[in-house]
């Protein structure tokens, strides 16, 4: 094993982007994955310094508000999970964190619905952005499930009432055999493990798609073809 000389010139970044550190390693799976990943998700497009001029509108703010609320939801959920229901029902600090968890969910859905309306009326699936739209829609649906199992996990009369009211509806769909809303342990696991993982993963892919394809152009924007495709199909100039 040799130790690399720290003063030795580093390989050109373009070479790293295209292949392995050494040409003879280019066919290794690590190099192939790295090359594919860098080509698919160029770092300069993931965190741009500037946005297109048409993004200067309040309607573009609600996606970020949704993500911010999701961060608060997850952070407060971590705290609630650490201390448990005896704490969040009795302690004044626990009640406060529980309320933060609830109200950040309210902000999350409020902002997400306004974001959805804005993108719907922009036809935001134009210009190769179908995957962006679909991951957003699925995120919304999975979030509804996450909120529902949250109501079932409150450990109070409200959650008992909701579970007994919901069981007939769920049973009528035929899903009651595997998704038992009166099974508190199962609902808690769905709420604090499965669905949050799905929501975060979907939102992550959604944001990556937004960064990759760029923000959809308005209908009347110049430099645009009728199909909503930016005139520069790489999106680099639009997104830079």
């Amino acid at each position, binding site marked *: 094993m040799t130790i690399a000389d720290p003063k030795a010139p580093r390989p050109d970044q373009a070479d790293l982007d295209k292949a392995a550190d050494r040409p003879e390693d280019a066919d290794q799976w690590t190099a192939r994955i790295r090359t594919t990943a860098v080509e698919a998700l160029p770092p300069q497009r993931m965190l741009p310094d500037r*946005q*297109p*001029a*048409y993004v200067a*509108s*309040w*309607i573009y703010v609600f996606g970020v508000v949704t993500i911010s609320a999701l961060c608060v939801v997850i952070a407060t959920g971590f705290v609630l999970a650490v201390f448990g229901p005896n704490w969040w029902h009795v302690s004044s600090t626990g009640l406060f964190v529980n309320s933060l968890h609830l109200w950040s969910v309210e902000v999350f859905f409020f902002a997400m619905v*306004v974001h959805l309306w804005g993108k719907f009326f922009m036809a935001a699936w134009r210009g190769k952005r179908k995957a962006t739209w679909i991951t957003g829609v699925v995120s919304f649906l999975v979030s509804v499930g996450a909120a529902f199992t949250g109501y079932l996990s409150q450990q109070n009369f409200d959650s008992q009432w909701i579970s007994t009211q919901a069981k007939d509806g769920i049973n009528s769909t035929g899903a009651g055999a595997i998704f038992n809303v009166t099974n508190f342990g199962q609902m808690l696991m769905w709420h604090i493990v499965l669905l949050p993982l799905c929501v975060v993963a979907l939102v992550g892919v959604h944001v990556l798609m937004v960064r990759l394809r760029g923000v959809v152009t308005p209908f009347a924007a110049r430099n645009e073809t009728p199909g909503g495709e930016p005139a520069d199909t790489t999106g680099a100039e639009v997104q*830079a």
Partner: protein
Amino acid sequence: MPAIALVFGTVFGALIDLNKPGNYIHWGFIQMSYGNLIVIILMVIVFFAAILIPFKSPKGKEGDR
């Protein structure tokens, strides 16, 4: 109870009394609580406000294009 909490509790408690069964609207087969209706109306108001209210960019950062 601190005075400020008492004042806020009294004011908001007078506006929205949560210690009684909720009020619902019935419109054909649609049944909805007033709380949910208020949230939907707020979302519509915020949606149009977001479209109509100008967004001021910081000077020198007008964006590309």
